[in-house]
Each structure stands twice: as C-alpha cells, then as structure tokens.
C-alpha cells in the first residue's frame, strides 16, 4: 500500500463520507486512490477557498469533521481563506494539501509554497508528512485535534513522493497519544459552586451565549439553565438560533450591529454569564466596562479565552455541555428576576414590532427577513453572507429550531453559498437557504456548478442594491469623506447567470405581493434565485 492509499484508508477509518476539493499535479496520487472508493463522495469546487467553506458548512451541520483536499502552491494558498475562516469560528476541519517532492522542498520549484508555515497563525495544528509510514498516525491525530477541545482546522501537507512511497504495513491506531494535548472536559467543582451562588444572589442575571454552545451541542442544557433559573439570554452572532425568536427569555443579538433590546439587557445586567463566547470586539465593544459594572462568569473550553478579552470574576474551563450539566445537577437556583424580566419584555416587544421603512419599487431587507422567516421550515438551515445582508438576517430573521451559519469571526464574503452546499450535503432533507448581497454572491457564484451537478435544492436570496452597502455605510461616516469604490458597476444580470446554470429566478420589488413571491420562491422545485431589489440608500439602522 502506498501513502496515497494509506491516506484514503485512514479517512475511511475516520468515517469520512464526503470530501471537497480541487485536483492538481501534486495531489494526483491521493485523487487516484480516492477514485477507487465510491464510499467517499467528492465535490469538485471552482476555487479552492470554497472547498474550505463547503467543508465548514458540512462540519457545522453534520457535527463531523469537514474534509477538503487541494493541490500544492496556488491550490494551497487559495485554500488559506477557507482555513482562516474555519479557525476564527472554531470549525472542525482537516485540510489536505499536496506538496512538491520532499527532496526538492525549499528550492522554490514549480507550485511550491510553505503552506504549513503560512497557516501556522490561524490553524489549530499542521503536519508536513515526510514518511508514508506516519500517515495513519498523523490522520488519526489530525481528526482528534480538529474535533476535540476547542475545535479548529488542522492541515496535513503531503509531498507527492510520500504519497507514492510504499508503507511497510498499514495499521490504523486505535488511540491517540499526544502528551502536549489534553483538553479539559469537567469544570472545577469549587467554581461550579461559585457560579450557582452568584446566580442565586443576582437580581438581573443575563446569559450571553456564543458559538461554543453549538460546538459543544449544549443547546438543550442552555435552554434548561435559562428556563429553570429564569435568566434572559442574549447571543453573539455565532450563537444565533440557540433559542427561538418567540421564546420569552430570548433578547436577541448583542453588539455594534445587534438588537437594541439585547444591548440594553447587557448594559443593565448585574450578573453576566458568558457561555462559549470570547467577548470579541463586535459583540462587546468595551469588555472592560462590562467587567467593571457587573459580576462576570466565563464558561469556555479554551483556557486562553479566559482573561484574553475579559477578566471574568469566575472563570470555568471545560466542555460547555458538561459544565452546564454540572451546574444543573447542583440544583440551579431560582433567581428573583421577575422585575428584570418585566422590564426587558417591553424592550423586546418594541424591537419585534419595529416598523420598517417602505419604498416604491423596492423591498426592505428587514421586511423580507420577517416574511421569509415566517415561511421557512422549523428546522431550516440558513447560510448568511457578510455585509448588510448579514446584519439584517442576524437582527431580524425569526429563528425557530434551525441553524443560521455565517462567517462571524473572519467576516469572509462569499461564505454563504459554498457553506450552504456543504450543509445541504450533510442534511439533504433539510430546507437550505442562502442569504447574500450582490457583492458576496459575485465572490462565490461560480459554485452554482456544484448545485447544478447534484441538482441541489438550495434556495438563494440575493439582495441587490448595486453596492457594497456596509462598506458604504462606514465610508459615509467620519473620519471618511463619502463612498468610493463600492458601486458594483458592471455586475451581470443575475437572472441570466442563474439561467445559464439552469436555475430559475424570481424578482421581488413590491412589498404588497412579497408574501406570495416568497411562497412561490420556497415552493419552486430545486434551486431557485430570489433577487430582492434594495434601494442603495438603505442602511442597517433604518
């Protein structure tokens, strides 16, 4: 057995059933070995970055490690943004890259690039394999590292001669032994007690839930804690969807672009319980101020997050699900938060009944979100891009029991379409919707090919304002002097583009008939594009 077959055999041992990739010279042995294994399905992307995003969407929905495989040099560098995007959102991923022959490493030969060096700052770990006999162990370790503790992307770089090298024997290890890697699981009992005491003392407690709750699969525990202690919940962008919008304890999304009611709750709480969030700048503009004003509890699987952005009074390191169970087992105290909940209820009501502006010949994104959300399946997967479309979706799209996937950490435009493809592959039975702008769509629309190849039922909502709307919003505020370089002149007619891929489209430009248009869109068989005409002056605070 050669290195390439050992690689594919190892992936099979890890239960891999789908891969995303782009072939090239130095990865040919691995692709050749993959050809013999129809039990691993393969999606060919149109640019390597999207192999990363598809693997990310796939991982987030399947709960498994997403796998992508590309060639050396430009293939590897194109994948970098996909890896960095996964790193910032802690997505479990294994990226495999081909490499030039090991005896020529460092000579700057054709399509050579030091990819392990390049991704070191934004990958959880990386391997440059120099001996085919190491491949089974390396794959085993890579999957273990990618999926445990705080998940993240792991890169395996394999020179072509190592892929071709014969192994002495293939043996897939049962266990992983890495002496420098032992993620903590259980929370410290003394700290758990402190948390319970702090909750019992507080009058105005607030839970801030982030993407870590999804990663730990701790949605039920979070809900139970909130409900049994009567604690309202705000979420970061990565935590959206952890609670249905109509849940009485749901206060929406915090942050610079968040819901007013959520930010009010954060400003007035006397106890903040952060669960699986790093208190990044977009969510908490001034963490020191929060730290000064209220008691803080920080629950996270990554010890380095404690004290990085905020120095919480009670840190709790471990698996979020396990820790929440520990707190619940200790007997979650009932807080006297009735007055606090009453106060917040009014803020929430005001937010939900907010009246959006109307313009003849256009639809307002917030209005589209509400109407779309109402008609979506209970467990729909919505993949949201970056920009105004993201802010509108995160603020106003009603959440039920589905998922909202977006590039929250890195803010990578062009994420939504490939992520939706990965998500659809992971859960073909679930309604899958893309929400993007005309800027972000043009960063990934070449991936419509994957939708066409597999006849995928992915619905795409495209907000067309002929503008990079969110950048324009920044440019029109001091210290800048007006918009420049953000008009999307020369954009193609998206209906024609869709038609070229055999995808039907609809246009929404009238709010009176919007319900019918959305209904027609969602009930079109297979993929469909809904182009929403948005006035270029629309801003996210309208």
């Amino acid at each position, binding site marked *: 057995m050669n290195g390439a077959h050992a690689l594919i055999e190892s992936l099979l041992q890890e239960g891999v059933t789908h891969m995303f990739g782009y072939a090239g010279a130095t990865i040919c042995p691995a692709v050749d070995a993959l050809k013999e294994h129809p039990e691993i399905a393969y999606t060919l992307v149109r640019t390597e970055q999207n192999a990363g995003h598809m693997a990310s969407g796939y991982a987030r929905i399947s709960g498994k490690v997403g796998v992508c495989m590309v060639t050396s040099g430009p293939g590897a560098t194109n994948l970098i943004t996909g890896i960095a995007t996964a790193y910032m959102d802690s997505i479990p991923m294994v990226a495999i890259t081909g490499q030039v022959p090991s005896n020529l490493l460092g000579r700057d030969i054709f399509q050579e690039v030091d990819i*392990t*060096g390049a991704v*070191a*700052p934004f990958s*959880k*770990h990386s391997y*440059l394999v120099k001996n085919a006999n190491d491949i089974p162990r390396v794959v085993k370790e890579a999957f273990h*590292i990618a999926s445990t503790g705080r998940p993240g992307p792991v890169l395996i770089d394999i020179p072509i001669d190592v892929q071709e090298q014969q192994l002495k024997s293939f043996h897939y290890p049962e266990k992983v032994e*890495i*002496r*420098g*890697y032992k993620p903590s699981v259980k929370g410290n009992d003394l700290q758990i007690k402190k948390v319970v005491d702090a909750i019992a003392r507080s009058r105005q407690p607030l839970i801030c839930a982030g993407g870590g709750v999804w990663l730990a699969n701790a949605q039920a525990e979070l809900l139970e804690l909130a409900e049994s202690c009567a604690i309202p919940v705000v979420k970061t962008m990565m935590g959206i969807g952890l609670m249905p919008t109509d849940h009485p304890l749901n206060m929406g999304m915090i942050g610079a672009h968040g819901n007013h009611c959520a930010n009010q709750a954060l400003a007035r709480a006397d106890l903040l319980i952060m669960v699986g969030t790093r208190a990044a700048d977009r969510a908490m503009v001034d963490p020191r101020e929060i730290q000064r004003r209220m008691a803080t509890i920080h629950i996270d699987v*990554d*010890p*380095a997050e*404690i*004290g*990085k952005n905020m*120095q919480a009074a009670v840190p709790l390191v471990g698996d979020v699900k396990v820790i929440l169970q520990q707190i619940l087992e200790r007997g979650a105290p009932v807080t006297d938060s009735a007055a606090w909940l009453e106060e917040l209820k009014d803020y929430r009501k005001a937010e939900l009944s907010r009246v959006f502006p109307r313009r003849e010949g256009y639809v307002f994104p917030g209005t589209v979100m509400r109407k779309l959300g109402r008609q979506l399946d209970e467990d729909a997967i919505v993949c949201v891009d970056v920009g105004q479309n993201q802010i509108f979706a995160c603020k106003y799209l009603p959440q039920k029991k589905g998922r909202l996937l977006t590039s929250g950490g890195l803010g990578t435009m062009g994420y939504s379409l490939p992520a939706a493809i990965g998500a659809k592959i992971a859960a073909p039975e679930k309604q899958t919707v893309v929400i993007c702008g005309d800027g972000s769509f043009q960063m990934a629309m070449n991936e419509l090919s994957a939708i066409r190849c597999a006849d995928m039922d992915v619905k795409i909502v495209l907000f067309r304002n002929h503008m990079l709307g969110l950048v324009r919003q920044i440019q029109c505020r001091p210290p800048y002097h007006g918009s420049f370089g953000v008009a999307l002149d020369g954009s193609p007619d998206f209906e024609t583009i869709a038609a070229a891929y055999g995808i039907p489209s609809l246009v929404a430009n009238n709010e009176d008939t919007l319900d019918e248009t959305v209904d027609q869109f969602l009930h079109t068989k297979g993929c469909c594009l809904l182009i929403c005409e948005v006035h270029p002056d629309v801003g996210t605070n309208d």
Partner: protein
Amino acid sequence: MKQTISVLVENRAGVLNRITGLFSRRAFNIDSLAVGVTDDPTVSRITIIVDSGNNVVEQVEKQLNKLIEVIKVRTLEENNLIGRELMILKVNANNKTRQDIMTICEIMGAKVADISPTSLTMELSDTPDRLDTFQSMMRPFSILEVARTGVIAVQKGGGKI
C-alpha cells in the same frame, strides 16, 4: 517586570518556529530565548524571558499551552530559580592594557578563551546582571564583539517542572 518562562516542547523540526510565530502574532515581546535538548532526547527546553505585566505573562502561558507540541509551561518565580547566561566578549588588548583587563576578569570570574597580540576573548557564565556589569567594565577597552546565549534556567531545589 522580567519573568522567566520555562517551556518543555517536543524536540522536532518546526517547533521553535511555532513558538516564535506565536509571540509575534499575539504581539508579545521576547527579551531572550534559549533552546536546547533535555535529558530526554525527544524533549527540548526553551527558556523565554518576557518583560511584561502578569496578565500578559498569563496569556503567554495559556497561548503556549495551546500549541500541540508544547508539553509543559511554567513561569519560574524570580527568587526561586537558577538562571545563567553565557557571554563571549572580545576586546582590544595590547601590552599596556592586558593586565588591567585580566584583573577585571579575575574579579568577575571570567576565563580567557583566546588571545592575540591585539585582542583578548573572554567567556563568562553568570546571571544577566553580572554579565551586564562585566560588559560595562570592558567598554573602556573598546569591545570588538559580544555574543550572549540568552538565559537558561531551572527552579531551585529538588522539584522539576
């Protein structure tokens, strides 16, 4: 405040790169860094001196711990460590100055490593403070070259990290 962080890592290619890369990416400043293999040939010890507040050092420790190839990290307490640095220093020396230089060497415990009609090369292993003193005493004789290893350290007593 200067603090000494002792790090045990896998003795493999590329590990040092990950450590220094982490320092630059997270904007931590390194005062000195020394690396060498331990009694176990699969393990290297890296001694890092950082000049930062406690919060930063705590973050440095935590971020180092996240690296898969880092086995152990410990910040050594200032009054509970044996820290040494090696310096090789070359000065101009002639028949007139050589004796004065030798006197300082004797006082500081430095050894002569090389001699030529116009120069003296000395080696001294001591704490960084004492090396600084020695260096400043040599300055009047016109220093030609200095090489320092950076501090290596272990904790006092029978314990180990």
